């Protein structure tokens, strides 16, 4: 691999636990659950009525004055990304034109972005008047839609829904003119974005890459899709706090949510040169995929997860005994938990007995393209503070599951943390981050 080392020097997160990375960490430490009954729309027609929702915010507070007009072109996915990007940049000490146009200290062509995004759901209320204007004899009429109805759709409508617009808005706001990519690999997007962003820096094509993922999954379209696929829990609303139970015998499905997690990835030499505060180093990444026609996600032995972890070990020059903490994907979909556990156990062998495993979705929910990124951010906090809280909602581990899920808080130095994730299309990724060890 290329030899330019890459570190993390800034964090930004918007999650069901609050409007900052610090708020998320505080919520995690307190064991506060960000999952509750859906308020964004009336969910009573769906089997699943729960979600991890972001508290109310004012997007204008996160936009430079000159760019506030553009807010009308932002879907919620874009808003969340823009907010997390603003906080990540500020926390890194880098000054972009959005933060202070008089004191910019970045070289825009050397600054890029690699941002995971989901399939942005159509806001049905926005197009409903156009559909309503296209009714003939009580039914939708495509002729009337073409000649009249669609004229009611805002002209720039499409630009709210292109998944690359998360990265585009952020790059415009902060003037990031370097390499730019939008990864759309569902729940591994955030990890792939970090892996690729690191490689872009390692090969010398940029000095800084803002990397991570964002997705807003609390809407009727996602709920319909996940309910149809049987991945969403049908737990009653009053049990919201205990609904999402990764690796528990009583796991009944995922709870979907919304979040954005962005990290400032920076070449070590660049970070040292400007005296930046280095939070962690990205030590290794690995990716793989499932290849069985029988199941459209992980195979029962979790082979894709195992291979991704093995590749991350190889990339980092590390092995199972070097890892102090595992943050799994842990969706709480029973089949997925079983397959992921098998994959992690396969990669660690006997060493799995000594590594704590900390699933976070019981509190954060499953935030799609943001999930892996906010887990990595949680991992950075664990490294910085040397502690993790107890995992929630694990009363009786799945039968045969050998993962050592931390039922108690742990306070000890975490030198290296492994984050893994996978999708319902079988892609898997693993990222190892570590305590900075100096130049």
């Amino acid at each position, binding site marked *: *691999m290329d030899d330019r080392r890459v570190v993390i020097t800034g964090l930004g997160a918007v999650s069901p636990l609050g409007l900052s990375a610090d708020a998320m960490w505080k919520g995690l430490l307190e064991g506060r659950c960000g999952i509750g009954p859906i308020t964004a729309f009336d969910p009573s027609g769906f089997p699943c009525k729960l979600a991890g929702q972001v508290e109310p915010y004012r997007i204008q507070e996160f936009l430079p004055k000159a760019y506030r007009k553009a807010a009308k072109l932002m879907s919620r996915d874009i808003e969340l990304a823009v907010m997390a990007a603003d906080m990540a940049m500020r926390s890194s000490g880098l000054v972009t034109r959005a933060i202070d146009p008089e004191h910019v200290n970045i070289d825009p062509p050397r600054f890029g972005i690699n941002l995971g995004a989901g399939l942005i759901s159509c806001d049905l209320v926005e197009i409903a008047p156009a559909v309503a204007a296209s009714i003939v004899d009580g039914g939708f009429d495509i002729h009337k839609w073409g000649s009249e109805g669609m004229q009611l759709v805002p002209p720039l409508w499409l*630009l709210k829904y292109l998944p690359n617009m998360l990265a585009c*808005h952020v*790059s415009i706001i902060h003037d990031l003119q370097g390499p*730019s990519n939008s990864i759309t690999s569902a729940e591994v997007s955030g990890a792939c974005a970090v892996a690729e962003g690191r490689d872009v820096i390692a090969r010398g094509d940029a000095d800084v890459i803002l990397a991570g993922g964002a997705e807003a999954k609390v809407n009727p379209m996602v709920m319909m899709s996940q309910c149809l696929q*049987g991945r969403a829990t049908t737990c009653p609303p009053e049990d919201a706090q205990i609904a999402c139970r990764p690796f528990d015998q009583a796991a009944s499905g995922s709870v979907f949510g919304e979040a954005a997690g962005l990290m400032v990835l920076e070449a070590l030499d660049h970070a040292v040169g400007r005296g930046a505060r280095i939070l962690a180093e990205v030590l290794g990444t690995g990716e793989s*995929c499932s290849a069985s026609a029988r199941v459209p996600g992980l195979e029962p032995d979790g082979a894709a997860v195992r291979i991704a972890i093995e590749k991350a070990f190889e990339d980092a020059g590390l092995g199972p005994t070097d890892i102090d903490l595992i943050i799994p994907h842990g969706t709480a979909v029973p089949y997925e938990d079983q397959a992921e556990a098998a994959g992690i156990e396969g990669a660690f062998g006997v060493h799995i007995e000594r590594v704590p495993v900390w699933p976070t979705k019981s509190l954060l929910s499953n935030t799609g393209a943001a999930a892996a990124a906010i887990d990595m951010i949680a991992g950075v906090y664990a490294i910085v503070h040397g502690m993790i809280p107890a995992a929630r909602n694990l009363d009786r581990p799945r039968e045969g599951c050998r993962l050592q899920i931390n039922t108690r808080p742990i306070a000890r130095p975490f030198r290296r943390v492994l984050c893994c994730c996978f999708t319902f299309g079988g892609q898997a990724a693993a990222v190892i981050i570590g305590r900075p060890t100096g130049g």
Partner: protein
Amino acid sequence: MAQGPRQHRRRVVITGMGIVCPLGHDVATVWKAVLAGASGADWITIFDASTYPTKFDAEVKGFDLRGFLADPTAHLTGNRACQFAVAAAVQACRQAGIDIETNDPRDGIDRKRLGIYLGSGEGSVDNKTFFSAIAQSWDQDSGTMDWVRWARIALESQDPVNTREQEPHMPSWHIAVLTGARGPARSCLTACAASTQAVGEAMMMIRSGRADVVIAGGCHSMIHPMGVMGFNRLTALSTKNEDPRTASRPFSGTRDGFVIGEGAGILVLESLESARRRGARVLAEIVGYGTSADAFRVTDMHETGRGPIQAMQAALKDAGLGPEQIDYINAHGTGTIENDQIETLAIKAVFGDRRVPVSSVKGAMGHLIAAAGAAEIICCVMALQDQLIPPTANLYDVDSRLDLDYVPLRPRPARLVHIMKESFGFGGQNNVVIIKRYQ
């Protein structure tokens, strides 16, 4: 290291290609049509667009996946564009000698080192039931949606598998099932630049040693009521309903927008040593890649073309080439007023007074959106092979304000060693690759 010379890196070559596009379902047929200046455009038949501002498109015609694979069962659930991608991957793998016929492939490729990188677009909802569910649940007087009613209708009318298959990462799963790939499997969706980016980043995966072989390219179809509506509202599409076949006319003085197409282009990228070891025939070498962001507006390109300029210069630097070494530019050339003008400016900024030949195959093929770049790179490989510059179809009258050497109507024989391929996405993400004749 980062800024140093890159002569020690692994060379990456192309050993297989496959295409499904409006001009045909195999490379030879498509290339012949491109050289002939044929048009893939005609009236929209996929849905009833007879009252739309634009009533024509460039559709894939007469396609049936069953003609490509003995047992296509696993892939018939894939969305429209995904099936194109599978068919194109079948062609590319067979040409490259990647064994997709047996369960225990003996082609000498380690599956853990076989990756996938697709610029794959999202699929389409089932439009009939989608519109109907909205119409039946919307109350125009109060401006509210009855979500309980919507949920009931949607859950009853939408199909779980079909819903899942619309996600942009699902084509990657199909290619993994087809090939047994176990390496990195990423999807990106940087609008119209996506599959060029996928090819560029796939090359980087091989160079950095993360894979030996990567199946790279893209697939997309936005020819559905919402897709065409979205582009029509942006006024990005040609509305020359009087003559669809000549409507796509990049660089013409009478151009009025792009013609929406669909399809898939897939390439097998491979390290030179892997290709030599396997005895695979090398079709071309890929020697440079550059990516950038305009960081200007989501609605317009920067008036100086600074983003495209930076991507072109980055690709040249990556390849270790000067502009005088590029023999032909395969343009993004969409046929919108803005793109062709800014792209011309950008080329002039990089190439100075040197009149390097330029053409756009979108005149013949239409604009395959996320799949465009890969399909066009395939044309570039054919151009190297035949030493022929493909013409810009329908270019009878070059815009008097544009002053490059645009190759019109008929192919032009030329000595071609290096070809530059440009792709620019809505929102300002730009990608450029350089391919080289293999000797």
